[in-house]
């Protein structure tokens, strides 16, 4: 057992050196609240490694392993295989990685796990860039967002992680967002209980990397959904279901204007971006609802 | 020490034949044999060869055979495929070949092997196992040349193929053993 030097309400220490207003921090607490202590976590180096700890101290009360940046899914698969070999089908194996470790360098190992149907729960907290190393662009960075490696704004669209996961026909996959913690927790519960791999792709505002006032973390997450920049849906038993579908989308600027990373957007680009988001949302929802 | 080199075409079971032969020697004759297969990148149909070293003591040597005492040719066409089956042979080297065609034998005679043992192993294979894979029959031919006993070959074949396939391949070996001729 851990030597408990700090009283915490849940399985996560309260004093963790994540930035003030960190979306990831809200996610890991809620995910672990649902999963409980019979969980083994795999964390790659990155912002989530702040929970792994430093030296003798850790911020988690559950067992965990910090692997390499690209093998989070594979390490989880190894743990699962060993648990299976020991006849343990109950313990949840949680892979908890950011977008860089998932959609960029880790996509191969993740695809392997999803194809083999290894029973692990994979959470990708997506803060849309490599935040821990200094805000470099990833393949999940949205178009126009400025990062230290896309200083003039990213010129291509982001990779669609959830559709990649769904293409493997896994039992459960869902997007989520920190603005709706209840929805997130429900999805974690479902993901935990399916027989096979499950993936949660969670939109995770980052005050430092997106350049906004930390107080706005949850508000920005909400606006991403309301403007159509982040689509909440889940894929279950071969069917997709859209969780949030407003009569009319909020103007994209309500979301982008709050953040420094979209400051470079010119007027004509803003128009085009609005157009793109609207079309993308409508087509995407149509496709999901018509099962295409 | 006895050094052997098997030549054939990819797909004819040259490597398998070497495995069976080395098993026959090692497990049923109380001697030691190792195979040193020369794997290429070639696929089915290409010329292949494999080396086998036999001794009464555990074999130390672990390199290809360059001066064979025995050469086994599984497919007589390989001399038309840039393969020199006489490479490294010496005054006492013998040849065991899968052919009964006199014209071809005449061509092989020019290599100056001390003795040539020959039999149509492919024909025997077709008659016995129903397909022209001569590795079983040619192992019988090897026994016919006196390098290994037919009983050991039959046992090793049965180990390798199991049940029915083992029986018919062993039969093919026995047939070739009985039909082999010597020049």
């Amino acid at each position, binding site marked *: 057992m851990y030597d408990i030097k700090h009283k915490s309400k849940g399985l996560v220490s309260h004093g963790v050196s994540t930035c003030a207003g960190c979306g990831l921090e809200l996610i890991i607490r809620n995910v672990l609240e649902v999963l409980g202590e019979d969980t083994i976590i795999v964390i790659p180096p990155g912002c989530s490694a702040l929970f792994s700890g430093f030296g003798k101290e850790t911020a988690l009360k559950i067992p965990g392993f910090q692997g390499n940046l690209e093998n989070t899914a594979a390490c989880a698969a190894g743990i699962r295989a060993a648990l299976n070999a020991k006849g343990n089908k109950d313990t949840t194996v949680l892979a908890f990685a950011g977008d860089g470790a998932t959609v960029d360098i880790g996509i191969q190992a993740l695809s392997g796990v999803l194809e083999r149907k290894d029973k692990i729960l994979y959470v990708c907290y997506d803060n849309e860039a490599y935040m821990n190393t200094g805000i470099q662009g990833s393949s999940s960075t949205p178009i126009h967002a400025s990062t230290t490696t896309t200083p003039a704004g990213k010129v291509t669209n982001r990779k669609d992680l959830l559709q990649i996961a769904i293409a493997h026909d896994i039992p459960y996959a869902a997007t989520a967002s920190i603005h709706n913690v209840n929805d997130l927790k429900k999805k974690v519960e479902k993901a935990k209980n399916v027989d096979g791999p499950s993936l949660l792709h969670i939109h995770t505002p980052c005050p430092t990397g997106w350049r906004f006032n930390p107080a706005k973390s949850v508000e920005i997450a909400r606006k991403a959904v309301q403007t159509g920049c982040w689509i909440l849906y889940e894929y279950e038993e071969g069917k997709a279901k859209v969780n949030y579908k407003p009569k009319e989308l909020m103007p994209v600027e309500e979301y982008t204007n709050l953040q420094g990373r979209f400051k470079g957007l010119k007027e004509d680009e803003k128009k085009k971006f609005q157009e793109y988001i609207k079309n993308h949302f409508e087509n995407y929802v149509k496709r999901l609802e018509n099962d295409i | 020490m006895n050094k052997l080199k098997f030549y054939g075409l990819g797909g004819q079971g040259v490597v398998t034949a070497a495995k069976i032969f080395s098993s026959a020697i090692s497990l049923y004759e109380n001697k030691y044999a190792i195979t040193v297969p020369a794997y290429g990148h070639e696929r089915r149909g290409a010329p292949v060869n494999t080396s086998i070293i036999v001794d009464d003591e555990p074999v*130390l040597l672990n390199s290809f055979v360059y001066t064979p005492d025995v050469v086994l040719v599984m497919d007589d066409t390989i001399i038309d495929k840039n393969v020199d089956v006489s490479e490294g042979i010496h005054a006492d080297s013998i040849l065991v070949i899968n052919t009964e065609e006199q014209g071809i034998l005449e061509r092989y005679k020019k290599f100056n092997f001390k003795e040539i043992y020959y039999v149509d192993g492919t024909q025997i294979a077709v008659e016995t196992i129903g397909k022209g894979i001569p590795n079983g029959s040619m192992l019988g031919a090897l026994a016919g040349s006196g390098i290994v006993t037919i009983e050991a070959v039959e046992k090793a074949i049965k180990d390798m193929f199991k049940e029915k396939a083992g029986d018919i391949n062993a039969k093919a070996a026995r047939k070739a053993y009985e039909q082999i001729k010597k020049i």
Partner: protein
Amino acid sequence: MSHKMLDGNSAAVEAMKLARVQVISAYPITPQSSISEKLADIVASGELKAEYVRVESEHSAMSVATAAQLTGVRAATATASNGLALMHEVLSMTSGNRVPLVMPVVNRGIAAPWTLWCEHGDAMAERDSGWMQFYCQNVQEVLDLQLMAYRVAEDENVLTPAMVCLDGFFLSHSMQKIDVPEQETVDKFIGEYRPKNTYLDTKDPMFICDLTSPGEYTEMRYQQKTAFDNAIEVIEKVQDEFYKTFKRKLSIVEGYKTDDADVVLVTLGSMTGTAKYVVNKFREEGKKVGVAKLTVFRPFPAEYIRKLLGDKKVIGVFDRSAGLGGQGGPVWSEINCALKELDCDIRDYIGGLGGRDVPPATIEKIFNELLEIHEGKGENHTQWIDVKDNAMDIRQVIKNV
């Protein structure tokens, strides 16, 4: 104990089966592939009760095996060549976390140029990755050294992973007659897997492999260094016990007719057998030559080398890897360093690369050179012993630029 005809890859599988590995993660690569296949076979047939994870790369193979062993079971994987290179990053995870994984490495050169065939360059590139390295002379040693490796790696004073290196094709695909011990005997020798180090268990949680400060990193490495120091003694102990149990002698460094030898050649891997064969031939001719077989390359047994070769005036070292940019091959460098305070003339030979056979002729040429040096008749040696005279013209293309 029973005699079986097995090739090196089958012997490696036999050892894993006898060690009752519980999780297997494998990715095929020539000439390792038949290990992946045979493991799949024995799991499918029920001969071995284990989880088989058909991974999508060697990087994942090593990740799965390492994480599985951290979860409290004996795990297995195997690789070769570029596959080992792809594992590189994870190899340090295994060793740094002190996971006593045992892995056969089927030695093959690393591209480019593409080769399918034997060379030690793949394992030599990983010589400082914190893994022990054992090199096999023949198929029997593939089985024996692997059984030994489990004991050494899992020893509480070692807790360090081990590579059992077998030459691609010359061992992996060479059929040889070997003794395969009974399961019961092996069970007694190796024992059930008991995690003596960190592990993942929700009933006894700990967090493994978090960030380590400069204030502790050096000490972590020092602990690994100490493990390597301890390993030599443990290997010796295990080899003694191995001899008592299986009646076969294993060595850290084996001297073959070295006692009265004028010159000695240091070898590793399958070339050793051929070198011994040549020694016997030369001895018949009255030439006093010997072979020092290096079985254990990591930890490097410097003390043993000094004991065995300290009084030799002329020594050759055969590296089956190019050691590009170095002063000689990696084995030569180590031997040189071990004997640095002694009056030895140590010559480096590089050969057998990318599948080039090491026939008796090559070894004979080396011994003849060493004997001439010993007699004061020659001074120079042929460092690249089997390179062709027209090396620089190979695949020559001249173009105007």
